[in-house]
């Protein structure tokens, strides 16, 4: 029972750790680029979590294979989280681009990306 529980849940612990790393980057780092990198790590952990809950034992990729015979949902892993994450990856790349554009315009105006210096110069 215990071994089974650990074998089934250690992936969730690692993903939680990754999420905490991203949150730590967003909370504790003072440089805005590092905060953005932390946000990316956070997004990656969410994507990994979705892909992890899509998996199913003794099942293959969601492309229907005639060699497997008649279509049975037990033979294919869950296609829905894969679909959602496919769009989420591209959208996260685009929103990261928007974040960097904002950082570039902040740097052009105030000459720094350090949070404390930035708050002082904005006054």
């Amino acid at each position, binding site marked *: 029972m215990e071994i089974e529980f650990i074998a089934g849940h250690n992936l969730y612990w690692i993903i939680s750790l990754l999420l905490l790393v991203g949150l730590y980057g967003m909370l504790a780092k003072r440089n805005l680029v590092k905060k953005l990198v932390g946000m990316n790590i956070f997004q990656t952990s969410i994507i990994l979590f979705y892909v992890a809950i899509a998996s199913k034992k003794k099942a293959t990729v969601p*492309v229907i294979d005639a060699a497997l015979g008649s279509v049975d949902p037990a033979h294919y892993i869950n296609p829905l989280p894969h679909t959602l994450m*496919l769009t989420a990856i591209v959208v996260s790349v685009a929103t990261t*681009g928007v974040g960097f554009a904002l950082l570039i315009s902040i740097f052009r105006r105030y000459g720094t990306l350090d949070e404390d210096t930035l708050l002082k110069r904005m006054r």
Partner: protein
Amino acid sequence: MTSSSRNPILITASRLLAPFIQLFALYVIFHGHFGPGGGFQGGALLAASILMLRLSVGAERSELKFRKSWGTPVGALGAMIFAGTGLLTLLLGGRFLEYHFLPLPDLSRAELHSTGILLIEVGVSLAVMAVLVAIYDDIMEGPGGD
């Protein structure tokens, strides 16, 4: 981007590699029905090939392949192909994105759905490619860049 450190090995290798990456991207887009693939992945691959040329041979010569001013218009064109397919089915009596109302003869209902999926995959791949290249170009634009 300064052009003082142009490396001939990098230029030759990337120019040799780019057409094959684009061919593979087209395969990924148009084979997306039958294997792993689709519009988002193919668009990202096309953008990767163009960005590789932008980084290696420089912005002015890679503009022969994709101009800097094309980014947002091509992205809008891709989104318009997508929305236009939906509006076409809407005009022909169906609901939004109901592909079996597409005006193509001699195709069964399922094959019409397959054709509609191919149309919007092309739109998605154009939009993703153009927007990724446009974001890179916009970031490189400005006092420090180029």
